[in-house]
Every structure is written in C-alpha cells, then in structure tokens.
C-alpha cells in the first residue's frame, strides 16, 4: 500500500515508519525535514494545497500530527489539518484514513468520576481544554466527511501516555527506576502503539462493523478504568507490554 504519514517527525512517527517500511511504500511528511531513507515530503498540515499535493495517488493516510498548547496553532493543526486531510481523501477517493489523538478528546473531565470499562464509543465530551477540544473538532470533521463519502473508512486510535523501555529500567546513575511507581490508567509502550496503527492499516475493511470506528489503545493494566477490548477484538491487537510492574494501586 502507498501510505502518507502526516506528522511523521513526532514522537510516534519513527516507531511507525520502522514497522511499516518493509511492507508498504511510505511517504513521510512533516513541517520539519527529517533524515529518512523513505520518501519525504515537507508538508504543513494546516496548508490545504500542500496536503492535497502530498495525498495524490496514495491508498491510505495516517495522521499523527498534533499541537497541544498554542491556541492558534492548535486549531490550525488539530482542526484545520484534519479538514485538509479529509478534503484530500474526498478529492482523491482515498478509502483508508487513520486518525490519532488523546483519549480525552472523547473521555474529557466529565468522565473522570467514571471508573470502570470506559469505552471509546461514549458520547464525546472533551471540555474546553485547547488540546482536547481542537482534536475533538478535528475528529468531528473526519466523521462528517466519512458519513457523506461512502468510500471512506475512518479508524481513530486514541492514546495518551507513551513509554519506552526505560520505564522499567533498573535504578542506576543513568536510568530512573519506575518499578512500583504510579502510572496513569491510560499508558502504552511506543512499540504497541505503532503495532496498533499497522493493524488498522492492514485490516480488511469489510471486517469493520462500520465505516467509522474508534479504539482506545493502551496496555493491559489492573485498574480497568478504560477498555481496550474493542481494539483487541476488531483489530486483533494484543499489547506485548502490560506495564503491570509499574502499577502501584
């Protein structure tokens, strides 16, 4: 498959490129140039023309772009960026769109008091935090375009806290020992997050229950505040790292 990755120079991009590059033709894009062996296109996701130009003749778009704090830039990237992506999907009849975001663009502050098996299909209540609401607005744009274009299949993967192998590194001068320290109930290793996106990219679209599906992606943890059951059942994703050793409640 020919795949365009938007925001490939973020934290997750390199993990994803690493596992996709052998099986797919990937085009990495970002506002900042990166050193890569794959195709690279410089794209500002908030620029409609640049996104359209980069999207021609691709089979799938994966959106990893994000901007969190600056009010104007957050809307430019998280909301208008999604609009540009969907305009491109519509124009070039790209059937597969994978969007990403934080879990709290759906499960915002009003869900804090719920404590068991919160699933990704709850009514979105992002609150007014600039990151959450701009991402939620971007998601709404994706869903409207998906509903109106019968050839588009949208999969949204929601993450929050990413960890690498240093999470459980033994305590020495260089590393920090997190064993037994607290951990948010929405945590995942980078490798598992990238694997979930790969599975979403490669799934037979006929297997999806609807043309718009959302998944919570996080490691198995004892608390069960959120539920990753849907990702396991539909994407057949199985987190390799359960992070239980870092859990202390």
């Amino acid at each position, binding site marked *: 498959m020919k795949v365009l990755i938007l925001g490939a120079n973020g934290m997750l991009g390199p993990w994803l490129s690493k596992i996709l590059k052998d099986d797919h033709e990937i085009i990495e894009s970002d506002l900042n140039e990166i050193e890569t062996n794959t195709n690279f296109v410089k794209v500002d996701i908030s620029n409609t023309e640049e996104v359209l130009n980069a999207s021609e003749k691709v089979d799938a778009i994966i959106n990893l772009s994000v901007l969190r704090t600056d009010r104007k830039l957050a809307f430019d990237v998280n909301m208008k960026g999604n609009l540009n992506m969907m305009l491109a999907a519509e124009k070039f009849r790209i059937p597969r769109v994978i969007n990403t975001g934080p879990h709290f663009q759906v499960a915002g*502050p009003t869900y804090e008091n719920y404590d068991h098996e919160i699933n990704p299909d709850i009514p979105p209540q992002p609150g007014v935090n600039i990151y959450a609401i701009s991402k939620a607005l971007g998601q709404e744009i994706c869903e409207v375009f998906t509903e109106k274009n019968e050839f588009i299949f949208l999969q949204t993967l929601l993450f929050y806290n990413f960890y690498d192998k240093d999470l459980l590194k033994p305590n020495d001068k260089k590393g920090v020992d997190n064993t037994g320290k607290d951990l948010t109930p929405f945590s995942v290793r980078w490798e598992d997050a990238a694997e979930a996106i790969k599975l979403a990219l490669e799934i037979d679209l006929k297997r999806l229950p609807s043309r718009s599906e959302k998944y919570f992606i996080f490691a198995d943890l004892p608390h069960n505040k959120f539920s990753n059951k849907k990702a396991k059942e539909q994407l057949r994703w199985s987190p390799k790292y359960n992070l239980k050793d870092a859990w202390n409640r």
Partner: protein
Amino acid sequence: MNLLVSSGHKDIENLLNQIDNYEVEIVNEITEKNISKADCLLILSSLENCSSTEEFNLKIQGIYNTLALSVEQGVNKVIMISSLEILDYKKSYTVTENWKPKPKKDMYNLSLNLSEIVFKEFGRTFPFQKILLRVGFPINDKLNNNLNCFTSKKDFVITISKILKTNFKNQFEVFHVQSECDHQRYLTNKLNDLERLSSSIDDYYYYPRKKL
C-alpha cells in the same frame, strides 16, 4: 440591560433593535472593553458565511475566543444563533431539540456544527446560562407556499425577547424556532413551553419527603 451582539447576519442585526428594555450594541469585534458592560451576549458570528478552509478555521477560533472572553468577564447569559439547516435528516422525520446535528459537509454547515460543539462544551464546563437557538431560515414575513420552514420577523423578535427574560434552570438549553405553517418542518413545542424551564424560588426550596 445591555445586549452585546457579535455581528454576522445583517437581517438579524436589524431586527434586534426592536427588542424592548435592552440597549443593543452590535460589534464586529468582541473585546474586553465592550463585553465587560454586557449583561447578555448574542453570537451571530456563528452564521457568518465561510467558503475557504482558512475562513472556516478563523471562524471557529473566533467563537472559542469569544466564549473564553465571556467566561473571563462573567457574562450572565450567552445566546448563540444557529440554523435548523444543521439537521439534514429526511424531510418526513420529526426532528426535535434532542436529535444529534447531522450537518452537510460544506464549509458553512460544518462551521455551524463545530460552533455548536464549542458552545456546548463551554455550556458543560462553566455555570452560566447558554442558550443555543436554531432558527428556521429564511427570516421572512412573506409566506411562500413552497416553504415548510421559515421564521417571521415578529416570531424571531418575540423568541429572543422571551429567552432574554427567562432565567433558566439549566446552564445549557437548545431551542428550535420556526413560524407555524402547513406541513411545518420542525416542532417548536419546547420553545412554546419556555416557562416550564425557568427557575423560581420553589426550585430551591427543600420539601421534606412526605410520610407514606
């Protein structure tokens, strides 16, 4: 009482001067200075047309900034005017305020939808009255037989006046308004029953449970 209006729809702007007991100020830009004097803010800029992606982006940012400023300045009541066009369901369906918006994907309808989401999230988060009024356009007194959705100028002014006078129990309410006509497209029962939604001293009085 001061009513501050963020401009965005010329026909509506002209009608607002007919509202009694309110000093209406229509402004292109909401600033700390003009919002600090306002008792109520009416957002018409949600109706502003937008054709390009950048106009769309700026419009939604403007709505967010306006609402954030209204929170900072402690405005008591904010009314956002939207359009019934946002409910793009089959014409045979009886659509009420409880239905989820189903917008078309053009920039204007999409911007109305996103403006409503931003407004709803502010309504959910901050404890002051936020009223979302979806108006059946056009606003026109001449009854065209082909129309099953329109709002007369008189009905519009009466609706806004009623909403301004009502002290709402809930911090977020949605109303649909259109004038009565044959094969009326949208119901306006909730608006007609507006008094039921207002708060009174009884709502805050504790009645001990009666013995069975």
